[in-house]
């Protein structure tokens, strides 16, 4: 059995919506409750995240944006922009702690205290850009973890695999011209789903050209299409890029029961993707992989998919 870090903090529940909203603390309550009942949490190594240092956040986000976010929370604003990205008085701190969770997972794996990590964190991150939170996201947790690995652990090349059903426009933009972070996203086609980016010809810019890879899926696509895409599109790209560590932006909203999208991926699809990235990590990264929770809004499928995801991480 692999040593898997379980990164979680009870304070993640403090960021809660002031009105009805799909990205709620109940998601994490359901996840930890379900994994506890399944006897899986006791088989992982609990890691308590810490508040990150400023420098680690500033490697991705502008000070101006952080100040704006902090002020908005302190002032009691209910949202950052539209009602998508809500705030309460805790949101700035919990946003930091969520990024701290991704960092804790990256640290544990980089230092070898564990083999793999699952970061059960929220708010999610992949829509958050350098200067703007959006789409339920305040800080870009995966991007911050990638920069942290490069700055503090001498990691050169990082691969981010984003299988949240929405395109991670924040992550893509942050690394658009960076050849050291390869961003792969598989998501519902932008004509049909938020945020409306991630078309197949978005491949990076300047020095980063070729280090962004988008696989938009037509509405109705499911396990078979995901499998083909991983095998035929992702594999050759990873072979060329040769990452030193893999970060997974693990959203579970491509599931057929998720209300926010139109795809048909099942539990078996998530099992396949998990196994697939684990195999890539074994082949290229000495097994180093950190899974970071993004979206997934239907409790039953969210928990059953994460159970499978964790079982695969544990290498049962």
């Amino acid at each position, binding site marked *: 059995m692999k040593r898997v870090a379980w990164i979680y903090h009870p304070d993640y529940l403090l960021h809660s919506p002031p009105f009805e909203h799909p990205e709620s603390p109940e998601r994490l309550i359901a996840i930890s409750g379900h994994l506890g009942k399944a006897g899986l949490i006791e088989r992982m190594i609990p890691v308590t995240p810490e508040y990150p240092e400023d420098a680690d956040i500033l490697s991705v986000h502008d000070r101006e944006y952080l100040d704006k976010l902090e002020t908005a929370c302190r002032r009691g604003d209910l949202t950052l922009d*539209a*009602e998508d990205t809500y705030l309460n008085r805790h949101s700035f701190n919990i946003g930091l702690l969520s990024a701290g969770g991704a960092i804790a997972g990256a640290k544990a794996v980089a230092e070898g205290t564990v083999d793999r990590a699952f970061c059960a964190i929220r708010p999610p991150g992949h829509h958050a850009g350098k200067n703007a939170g959006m789409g339920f996201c305040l800080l870009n947790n995966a991007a911050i973890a990638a920069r942290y690995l490069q700055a503090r652990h001498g990691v050169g090349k990082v691969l981010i695999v984003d299988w949240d059903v929405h395109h991670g426009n924040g992550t893509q933009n942050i690394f658009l011209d960076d050849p050291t972070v390869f961003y792969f996203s598989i998501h519902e086609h932008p004509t049909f789903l938020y945020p*409306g980016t991630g078309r197949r010809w978005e491949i990076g810019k300047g020095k980063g050209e070729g280090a962004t890879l988008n696989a938009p899926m037509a*509405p*109705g696509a499911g396990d078979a299409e995901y499998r083909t895409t991983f095998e035929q599109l992702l594999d050759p790209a990873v072979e060329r890029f040769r990452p030193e560590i893999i970060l997974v932006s693990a959203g579970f909203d491509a599931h057929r029961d998720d*209300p*926010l999208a139109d795809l*048909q991926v099942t539990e078996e699809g998530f099992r396949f993707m998990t196994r697939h990235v684990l195999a890539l990590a074994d082949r290229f990264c000495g097994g180093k992989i950190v899974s970071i929770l993004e979206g997934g809004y239907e409790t039953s499928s969210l928990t059953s998919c994460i159970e499978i995801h964790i079982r695969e991480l544990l290498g049962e």
Partner: protein
Amino acid sequence: MFVARRMKKTTVTVVPSASLLEAQRRMREHTIRQVPVVSEDGTLLGILSDRDIRAAVLPAGLVPGFTPGDAEKFMKNTPVERVMTRKVVAATLSDTLEDAIVLLHDFRVNALPVVDNAGRVAGIITRTDVLEAFIDALGVGEVSSRLEVVVPDRPGTLAQLAAIIGSFHVNITSVLSTHHVEAGKRANFFRVATLNIGPIRKAIEEAGFEILDPSKFLLP
């Protein structure tokens, strides 16, 4: 919207006495495929495209023993006015973008020089500029979700839909309303600035409208 808003204002032009070689150099330098031909005071006299140049050089190229050097010499010695199209399809500054779209389509041209009241070239608008206007109008690339609603073709339905979307406190970033394949119905397309599109879809369906389910699009 008027063409003046979408045209390129810094227009590259050539005079009729310029050589084809000079015209080609200018077109390559600015990566354009056609250039308005103007008099000294800027009056539009004609238009020259890269295809016009190729078509002019081609017959000369059929002469035995013709070399690339000869082609250059030919282009150097041929003035633009001998090759340019004199019957120019042009837009005026007071034409609308709709006028430009119809002109580009009906006359099958790639670009329209835009002239002022005195007939002087004020700019140029190309098919690419028009496509850009469409990309903007459709809200492509803006952070948003898309909704497609089929409604009965009767007054007031669009207002009803807008009111429902408005009740969710989200901005509509683009609206398009067209005929539907089914007679007596219209298809309305919205882009709305939210990730959380589910409740809006549901409310629209509860109001009795038909949402096109994206996952059904690909089924035969």
